[in-house]
């Protein structure tokens, strides 16, 4: 417990000791001391759990990544940055990077416009609107694993989707959706879009409910059409919400694992066609027991996400999360 407080201090930039005003009033000093007991007592559990299970593991990842280590006994064979150079020389890892890039940009470019359109539509007042809202959220609520297995059943072999396409006279589109090395990543992108567009819609609807009714009503009374109101009043006010969604979507896309793991055949994954950084990391680090190498991949994944997040935060998000991430301690 004490150690966590010590860890907190450098980050907080302030000693956790009573430094109250020097007044002779003993009551005041006692109160101040009690305040500090409360602060420490209420924050310590959260700090301990957070430090122990978020920060400490990342520190260990950096350490282990410098060794060639099979995970038995303490790591002894120091190899420096060799694990890192090996990763960047492995074509499968480079494929994984490319696939992550496809998922990040594909998600942003496809889900954003779709979600905005649906959110604006579902923000209109019409009977039964709340039922439609619920239905749209359904894919987002389901576990990625469940969704993955579901789509695998619909797409594998000569599955339901193919049968449906044939019956609609579009038999030419039939593919080996999850087995064709050139197609699989796009299939996965489509499934991810289906699943996660609901998340963007939830956030946008929450943002939309913050747009004051008076604004849109005033515009309506002035004779603006529905689309004009959306275009000139509503959408501009959604800026912060859209940026927060982009941020969360980007971080999520970089660490995507479950869906890929359950839908694509290991062979397809190991050829790089559908691997992502996370599946590559687990395949190599955990299942092939190359712990040093796996941890190097973990660090790469972490650094890429962190840098992307910081850049995004620095240039786009700064005004939106009030002082949340980069504002200096004051």
């Amino acid at each position, binding site marked *: 417990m004490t150690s966590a407080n010590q860890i907190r201090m450098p980050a907080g930039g302030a000693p956790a000791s009573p430094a109250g005003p020097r007044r002779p009033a003993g009551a005041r000093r006692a109160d101040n001391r009690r305040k500090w007991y409360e602060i420490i007592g209420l924050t310590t559990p959260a700090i301990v759990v957070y430090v122990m*299970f978020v920060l400490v593991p990342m520190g260990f990842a950096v350490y282990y990544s410098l060794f060639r280590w099979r*995970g038995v006994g303490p790591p002894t064979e120091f190899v420096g940055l060799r694990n890192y150079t090996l990763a960047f020389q492995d074509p499968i890892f480079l494929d994984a990077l490319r696939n992550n890039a496809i998922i990040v940009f594909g998600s942003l470019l496809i889900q954003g416009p779709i979600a905005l359109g649906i959110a604006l539509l579902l923000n*209109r007042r019409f009977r039964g609107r709340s039922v439609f809202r619920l239905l749209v959220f359904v894919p987002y609520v389901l576990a990625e*694993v469940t969704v993955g297995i579901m789509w695998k059943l619909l797409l594998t072999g000569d599955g339901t989707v193919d049968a449906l396409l044939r019956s609609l006279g579009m038999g030419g589109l039939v593919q080996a959706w999850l087995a064709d090395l050139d197609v699989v990543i796009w299939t996965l992108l489509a499934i991810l879009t289906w699943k996660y567009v609901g998340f963007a819609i939830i956030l946008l609807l929450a943002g939309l409910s913050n747009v004051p009714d008076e604004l849109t009503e005033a515009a309506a009374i002035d004779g603006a059409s529905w689309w004009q109101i959306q275009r000139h009043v509503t959408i501009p006010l959604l800026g912060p919400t859209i940026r927060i969604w982009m941020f969360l979507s980007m971080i999520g896309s970089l660490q995507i694992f479950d869906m890929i793991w359950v839908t694509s055949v290991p062979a397809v994954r190991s050829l790089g066609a559908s691997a992502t950084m996370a599946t590559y990391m687990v395949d190599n680090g955990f299942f092939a027991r190359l712990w040093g190498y796996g941890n190097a991949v*973990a660090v790469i994944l*972490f650094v890429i*996400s962190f840098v992307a997040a910081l850049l995004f935060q620095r240039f786009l998000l700064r005004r939106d999360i009030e002082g*949340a991430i980069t*504002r200096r301690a004051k």
Partner: protein
Amino acid sequence: MTMAVNTALPQPSGRRQFSWGTPLTYALALAIAAVSIAPVVYVVVGGFRTTPQIVANPAGLPDPFVWDNYSRVLTQSNFWQQAFNSAVIAFGTTLAVVVLGMAAAFVLARYSFRGREGLYTFFTLGLLFPAGAAILPLYLMLRDLSLINSYYAVILPQVAFSLPLTIVILRPFLSAIPRELEDAAAIDGASRLGFLWRVAVPLSRPALVTVGVLAFVASWNSFLLPLLVLSDVNLHTLPLGVQNFSSQYTTDTAGVLAFTSLAMLPALLFFTLAEKQIVGGLQGAVKG
């Protein structure tokens, strides 16, 4: 609220809603809803068919209706055991996240002290940490702590990774409680902790429900962490169960459909009950 605004509006504005836009709105909304739930309905309905039926005509309706797949999953598989494990882990995670997050957010919102913003920044940094990247070292650490194959191995890391978002959502909520309320409580003899318990907690209920539901659904659906730290089959959670079942009974399509639909059910029910609350609770967090 919507109703009140509506009736208060002048006539032309009130009529606008029933213009040509409405049928189009319905048509679009129906199409969108269909795309969202058609695959889910297919899976649920498919569970009532037999595998030969599905193979012969993938898109057909159950004829005859077969309960066997569902009853088989519920009686012969480890479904109940896995549902129980998922429930223990999800409720444990949710409770811990809400309690720890509320305590920390309360301090960050209602106490002024040196280093407060630094501490907040320290927590929000966690938003930038991808949970997935920490999974290998986390496994090694849990192994060294002999926590592998226990509920704690899933609960503790999940709590840790949910805390940043929880605090970011709760803090503005707690900050918004007027100063006067705190003063009034103090005059009535309540300590700061009394204020936390008697005023802040009840007033933040909407936000607490939001963070609780988010933590619960995230935990209920999580896969990677349980996959690595729960090798004991008796501790497997539902997502692991779905994955096992589908790879074990590849030829039993109808059985897999039934198992998959049963695994979907709890999260769907839970979310349906709390949907309004979630959208409401997020409003505070996403405002500019």
